[in-house]
């Protein structure tokens, strides 16, 4: 009971801390003369404050243990989903509140699926709301909250709960500052470049600024949401394609690696196991996608084929989901290409980045463990075979590390398959169901046509769960189970 009250208290604090975001969006709506949206944001602001204070009053301040920290992170995601969905639902661009919740979770989990209708008539303020939450969720929504809450040493449990395992500096506040300094630098540079391209492409000053901001946030958070009904295809600009590709690749790289490179260790890029594994798995996926695309016969010249294949494979691997084709068009690339995309999405980006999926570091560790086992067969049983991998520093492979990586990988694969099974139960073909399920769990947001406002409600709920579980890398779910089991004992 004490733990439960502590959990309520801190979730309440987190929710009330984030109420100011709704207020800022209300001001933005007033500036842009979107008065109806301004009222929606005021209602949202009041709801944040109300929900936050109810939980604070129900709860009690207490010590945050590792498990409690994890549970706080997991449940705050759910509470935030219901609140973030409020202005979406009030905008009348959704068929139901469930659809709004689906989009809210898709944003918070940086997935990028969307059930919105008539997106081209959405207000500036509501579009900014749609992109702002994935952006801050990508950086670590709870990490931000911790800064406001003037973290205690036990607050690190909350940091771990988001799936960010890298601890750049010993102190959590310093970690938060480093993450935000790197993110802010990229934000200013990224938005400026995209803004200039937008102006050059005749989008208009104000419009180009908002599109630059939204695209940057979407790319950096590897979210893949788009402000238009035709994603980046809307701009017909290879410069925007290239810029967004650079942004989502940077977003999928570990903050730890960014920090190391920015502090002068540039050679780390070439030595890092994650980067090497990324290039390897990207190569494999690209081969599959290329074969599929060539077989489809859709593209008649090499630049078109290469640009489309590379952009989408990279977007899938970074678990971004920004696309140069229409939603549902990917199915025309054929099953081989879809398998390539499934591999890329399933593997995902770097641990400690904004991307989702199993994570390339875990794949690298498992491959190294396999090599170690094969090597040990060639030596006498008395020989000790050691294998190491390089991630900022040389790390010796041990059973604990391999076991942890295997558990997370198996959790992902099981969830991918369970989601696919649900799709099959509703009559969708296996490859489409698997594609959509992997896309939801890995936080990519590519769709080959199943995800739409017309899909069955149960599937929406299953995908919401998959997005949530995938974002938190299952660790937080294990924490909830362990807390429940602990209480029973």
């Amino acid at each position: 009971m004490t733990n439960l009250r502590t959990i309520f208290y801190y979730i309440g604090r987190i929710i009330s801390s984030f109420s100011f975001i709704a207020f800022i969006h209300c001001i933005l709506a007033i500036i842009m003369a979107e008065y109806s949206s301004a009222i929606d944001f005021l209602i949202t602001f009041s709801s944040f404050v109300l929900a936050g204070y109810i939980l604070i009053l129900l709860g009690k301040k207490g010590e945050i243990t590792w498990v409690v920290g994890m549970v706080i992170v997991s449940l705050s995601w759910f509470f935030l989903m219901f609140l973030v969905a409020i202005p979406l639902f009030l905008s009348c661009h959704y068929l139901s509140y469930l659809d709004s919740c689906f989009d809210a979770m898709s944003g918070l989990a940086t997935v990028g699926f969307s059930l919105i209708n008539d997106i081209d008539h959405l207000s500036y303020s509501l579009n900014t709301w749609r992109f702002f939450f994935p952006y801050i969720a990508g950086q670590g929504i709870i990490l931000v909250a911790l800064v406001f809450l003037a973290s205690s040493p036990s607050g690190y449990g909350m940091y771990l709960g988001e799936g960010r395992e890298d601890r750049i500096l010993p102190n959590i506040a310093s970690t938060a500052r480093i993450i935000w300094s790197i993110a802010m630098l990229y934000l200013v540079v990224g938005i400026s470049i995209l803004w200039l391209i937008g102006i050059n492409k005749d989008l208009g000053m104000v419009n180009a600024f908002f599109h630059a901001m939204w695209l940057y946030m979407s790319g950096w958070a590897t979210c893949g949401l788009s402000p238009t009904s035709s994603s980046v295809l809307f701009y017909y600009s290879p410069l925007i394609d290239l810029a967004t590709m650079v942004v989502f690749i940077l977003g999928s790289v570990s903050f730890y690696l960014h920090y190391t490179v920015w502090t002068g260790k540039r050679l780390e890029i070439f030595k890092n196991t994650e980067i090497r594994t990324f290039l390897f798995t990207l190569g494999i996926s690209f081969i599959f996608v290329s074969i599929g695309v060539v077989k489809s016969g859709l593209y008649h010249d090499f630049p078109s084929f290469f640009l489309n294949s590379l952009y989408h494979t990279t977007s899938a691997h970074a678990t971004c989901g920004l696309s140069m084709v229409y939603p549902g068009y990917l199915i025309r690339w054929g099953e081989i290409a879809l398998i390539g995309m499934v591999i890329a999405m399933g593997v995902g980006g770097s641990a400690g980045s904004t991307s989702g999926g199993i994570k390339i570091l875990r794949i690298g560790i498992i491959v190294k463990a396999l090599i170690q086992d094969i090597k040990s067969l060639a030596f006498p049983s008395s020989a000790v075979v050691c294998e190491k991998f390089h991630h900022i520093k040389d790390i010796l492979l041990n059973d604990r590390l391999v076991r942890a990586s295997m558990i997370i990988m198996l959790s992902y694969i099981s969830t991918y398959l369970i989601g696919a099974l649900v799709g099959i139960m509703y009559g969708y073909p296996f490859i489409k169901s698997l594609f959509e399920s992997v896309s939801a769990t890995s936080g990519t947001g590519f769709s080959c046509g199943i995800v739409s406002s017309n899909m069955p409600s149960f599937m929406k709920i299953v995908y919401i769960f998959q997005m949530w579980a995938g974002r938190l890398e299952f660790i937080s779910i294990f924490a909830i189970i362990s807390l429940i089991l602990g209480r029973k004992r």
Partner: protein
Amino acid sequence: MKLGVRGSGFGIRILFFLLLCSLSYGISISDLIQEPREKAIEIEGEVVGKPMRRRNFYLLNIYDKTGGIGVFIRLDKCPKIRYYGRYGVMGDKIRVSGIFNPACKEHWGKMDIHASSIEVLEKGRRIEKPVSRTKLGILAILSLLALLLIFVRKRYASN
């Protein structure tokens, strides 16, 4: 000779019929996306987003409730678009005639329409978005409850 004229007339009719068959009238954008190859089409939709100038062309994005697609048209052939769809504005409804490209060689393999002509069917308009009274009522109740809870919390904390 007579027969020859008749024969050529029949051939022209057949050709005309085939041309009509190949030209798709009034199809939706989502249907268009399924087309596997280049095709002469005629399509209707609302202009969304600001028309963008690309060298000697304008790029218009049109939307028809089923999807959106980019349309390229020469500057001299583009009619004046007064309203383009955005928040609070319904864009001009236009009819586009031209060639649909599922993977355009000129535009990096992207799907588009190269229009030969555009006709404005219906002028767009501003859409009033009045502030709902129901929403104002909900806001008042939620704000009062939130203030009450903040007050209770302050009292509770001070005790």
